[in-house]
Every structure is written in C-alpha cells, then in structure tokens.
C-alpha cells in the first residue's frame, strides 16, 4: 500500500509543480502580507482610537514589531483567503484528470485507486503547508524589515520577547493549518464526486461560506466553539497569559472531525466508481 501511494505522491508533486496555475496560490500567499504592509503604511487609519487593522487581535502591535504582521493578516484575509488557495488545488486534483482523460491512463497501470487518491491527498497537504510557510516567511521578512524585530504585546496585555513571539507564531501557523486542511479535504471530495474542476472549486467556496454563515447564527451560539470556522482563531490561546489550552485541543479534534468524513467518502467513491470520461 505504502509503495504505490509514495509513487503516486512523488508524481503528484511533479504535476503540481509543472502546472503554472498552481504557482498562483503560492505567489498570492507570498504577496498578501506584503500588500497589507504597504496598505497599512500608506493608509490614514488611526491607531488612537484604534481603527481598521489596528482594531484586530494583536493589531496594536502593527508598526511596533514586524512579528505582528502575519498574525494580524490572518484575521484580515478571513475565511475566503485560505479557502481560495485550498479550493483551487483541491477541487482540480482529481476532477482535472477526469476532464483531461488522464485518470483512465493512470488507473490501468499497477497502482491501486486507493493509492492514487492517497498520493493526491498527501500532495494537496504538502501544497497547503508550502503555501502557509511561504506566507509566514514572507510576512516575517517584510514585517521585520519594515518594523523591526521587537517584543510583542499579547492579547492579555503582557509583553513577550521577540524570539518567544516568533516561536509562538510557528505553532500558531500549524494550528491555523488544521481547519484549512479540513476545508481542503471537503474540496477533494467534491473533486471526486463532481468530476468537474470548476464545480468542485465553487462548491468548496460555498461550503466555507456556509460554515461561516453558521458561525454567525446566534440561536446556535452554544455550538459555535465546535464549528470549523472558529478553529481558525484557536491560535489566539497561545497569546494569552496564562496560556489557555482548551481551544487548542478543540481545534485538533474538531478539525479532524471535519476532515476525516470527506476523506473517507472520497475514498469510498473513488475506489468504486466507473471511469467513463
């Protein structure tokens, strides 16, 4: 099982790299923090009273330390930013081969369908991790160049050292990735089921928007902590004094609970269905 999946994974990466389209997401990930930095630099919004980006968690650190940039931009790109990047690749990864007819070419060789899908899922995960790392590195780099490598005032109003804040940023990034991966796994399912890239991409965006809509419904406020979208801010716990753990633990299992069923469903459908394109 492992051997075939690794072969598929390796070639799936080469295919992702060979398609120019996939570089758009990576390029966007690197440009987003740069664009926000520039717009903050030239904008007229005031820090007293806090307005615009300053009025976000950790927003008061903008212009004070470069380490704030990535974390504040997380809030500004909302749900749509990461969903777009995830959906563009996830929605196409199976459906693109269905439409291009290459699925029938690779499925008559010696790698099982389950292994092909596993290779694709792993390549998708790799892509998302790379996009996030590119985002983080670009944000820290330009942030530090513009505003310096200074201590950060956390959400409880305590000052933490620059190095400590950098370490926490890395952990925050990993936590942020989990719900994004869960959204991507739904995109993978749509890619398998719809057999159409555009439908799968649009469906994934709608799914994320619907989840966001749910998290705004006050009658179900008691379940809000368990909605996928709310896990995008689980990393806030890292920047509290004393550091809380509940939201972080919840982020782990809620993200898994949203990611696994679509993956299993995708596997069930992909390994059984007819390939007729």
């Amino acid at each position, binding site marked *: 099982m492992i051997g075939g999946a690794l072969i598929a994974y390796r*070639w799936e990466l080469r295919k992702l790299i060979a398609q120019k389209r996939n570089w758009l997401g990576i390029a966007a990930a690197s440009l987003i923090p740069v664009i926000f930095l520039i717009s903050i630099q030239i904008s007229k919004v005031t820090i007293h009273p806090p307005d615009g980006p300053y009025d976000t968690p950790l927003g008061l650190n903008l212009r004070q330390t470069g380490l704030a940039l990535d974390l504040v931009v997380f809030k500004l790109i909302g749900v749509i930013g990461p969903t777009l990047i995830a959906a563009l690749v996830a929605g196409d990864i199976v459906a693109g081969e269905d439409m291009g007819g290459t699925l029938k*070419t690779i499925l008559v060789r010696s790698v099982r369908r389950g292994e092909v899908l596993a290779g694709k899922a792993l390549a998708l995960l790799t892509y998302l991790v790379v996009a996030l790392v590119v985002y983080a590195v670009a944000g820290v780099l330009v942030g530090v160049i513009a505003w310096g490598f200074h201590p950060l005032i956390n959400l409880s109003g305590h000052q933490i050292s620059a190095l400590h804040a950098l370490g926490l940023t890395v952990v925050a990034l990993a936590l942020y990735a989990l719900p994004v991966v869960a959204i991507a796994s739904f995109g993978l399912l749509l890619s398998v089921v719809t057999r159409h890239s555009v439908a799968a991409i649009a469906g994934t965006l709608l799914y994320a928007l619907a989840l966001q809509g749910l998290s705004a419904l006050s009658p179900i406020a008691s379940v809000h902590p368990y909605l996928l979208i709310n896990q995008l801010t689980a990393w806030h716990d890292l920047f509290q004094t004393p550091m809380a753990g509940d939201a972080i633990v919840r982020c782990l299992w809620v993200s898994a609970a949203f990611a696994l069923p679509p993956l299993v469903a995708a596997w069930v459908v992909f390994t059984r269905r007819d*390939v007729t394109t």
Partner: protein
Amino acid sequence: MKVLSRQARLPHEAPIEARGLVKRYRDVPAVDGVDLTVQPGDIYGFLGPNGAGKTTTLRMFLGLVRPDAGSVRLFGREAAKDGIGALQGVAGFIEEPRLYPYLNGRENLQLLAAFDRGGQGEAAIDEVLEMVELRDRGGDRVSEYSQGMRQRLGIASCLVRQPRLLLLDEPANGVDPAGLRYMRELLGRLSDEGITILLSSHLLAEVQQVCTRVAMISRGRIVYEGGMDELTRAAGRRYRLEAADIDRAARVCRSLPTVDDVRSDHGELSFRVDDDDGLEALVAALVDARVGIRALIPETDSLERLFFELTDEPVAVTA
C-alpha cells in the same frame, strides 16, 4: 524420456475470456451479454458501428467500469477478485490516449513506468520512444504534439509496460494514411514478438487488413465471431464484368452453379462467386461462349454489405 517444460504444464489461460458481460447506463444496455474469447497470438478485431458498445466493453476489460453482470478474465485473473493485479501484462487505451499535456513525452513515460512498478529504466523508455519515432521529440511538451504524435506516444505508453496483451480502442481514429501504414506495420511487428492484440474499430477495412479474428458487435450484442478468412468467405466475393455482349454474358453467368446473385444494369454485370475455382470456371465458360471480356473487376464492398447486414445498420452507399 521427454520432460514437459514448466510452461507447457501451466493451465492454458486465454488472454481474454469475457462471459455474459452486461453494462447498463440509466437502464439502457450499452453492452448486453457479451461473450468473447481471445487466444494467445490473435490480432483480434472488435468491429462495430459507433455506439455499438465497443468502448464500454473495453472499459470493463480494463477495470475502469464495473459490469452489471458477467465477468472478464485476463490471463485467468479477474478484476473483481484480483483488482489491479488482473492487469498484469496488460496495457491499452480507451478512446484516444490521454497524457499530461504540461509534461513532456519522456516525463509522461517516466510517470507511467513508475506507476507500472516494474523497474523499467531510462533504457526501456529510450527504446519505446525510438520504436514510435519520437526519440528527438521526447523533450517537448505533449501539448505541442500533433494528433498523430499523441497516438504514437499513447502506443509507447502501452509498450513501456512490456505487455503480453494490448487493448487498443479505435487506434486508427484521426490518423493520416502514412500513420495508418506505420500503425499496421507496428502491430504486425508486435504480434510477431508474441503480443496478443485486440483492437476495436468501426472501419471494416482497417480490421480486414490487420486482424486474424474478428467479433462484430451491434447494439451491445455480438452478432458474429470467427476467423477473418471465414468471414471473407461468408461474404463471398463480388465482381463486376464489362463485356461487349452483356446479355450473353449474363446468360452464361446464370447457367453456372458457382455464380450467384447475378445483376445487370446500365450495361454492367455484377455477380458473386465463392472461390477462385468458381471464378476460373466462369472465365472459361465466357471464353467458350465467345463473350468478349473487357474488364473483370473485384468489388470490395461485399464484406461491407455483410457487415451492415449483420450490424443492422442501413446500407451505406459506398463510393
């Protein structure tokens, strides 16, 4: 005392053995109880008009589509039981070969060789690129290939698997005459190397020229199965005769038991004879009757007519 070789003691397994294959799309049968046996060494023609169910049958052979009923065994292995293992030693493509347009030809073959898990190295890839005359274009992206080149790369992608059975769905589609000649030669060479081949086509002439056996499919059912020469014999051979005295020639034709289906119109006579002896007897009789023969022309459309009769299609007017 002779010792049987290990090979000889192995149970004889047909490259393809399909029994009662059925596939329905929205309750409409696309394939409706197909039985088919392909023996080692056959160049097997799978002939039928568009929509007859050829592609669907081949998809079931290759495990891309699950039959609603029936079974397929390839060298004795069944997809339902052996999964991808049923395709060991089997390669082929459905409709036109589809490869990754954004990778180059060589990369496509590398990918598929990796997916074959057979350890074929660069040498094998060079060899098949050479074989399909794409050696110096292997570094170009497939999106820049002509249709003929894609077809050849498709064949290469099958050969890199080193198959014992090759399944080709309408390999002649969209190929120019030079490409067709090349394809025929290549299939002959592969067959000589011991590869069993099944190719589908809606063109009788294509199958007639290369195949040793043939099955005809119409509306999802096999309507004929047999050797190519038997089929040719069954169709008989039609000739056209141009003569000075057409009425006398017609009388001679009608008087001979080996000549059938005599028709005469517009000063031209056409008829059917079953074999060379019958034809020689006719010519001798015509000479005896002092009929001045101006031309005796074999008609090529008799097999075609049989094909249309068998497949229940309206007879096309052949040029």
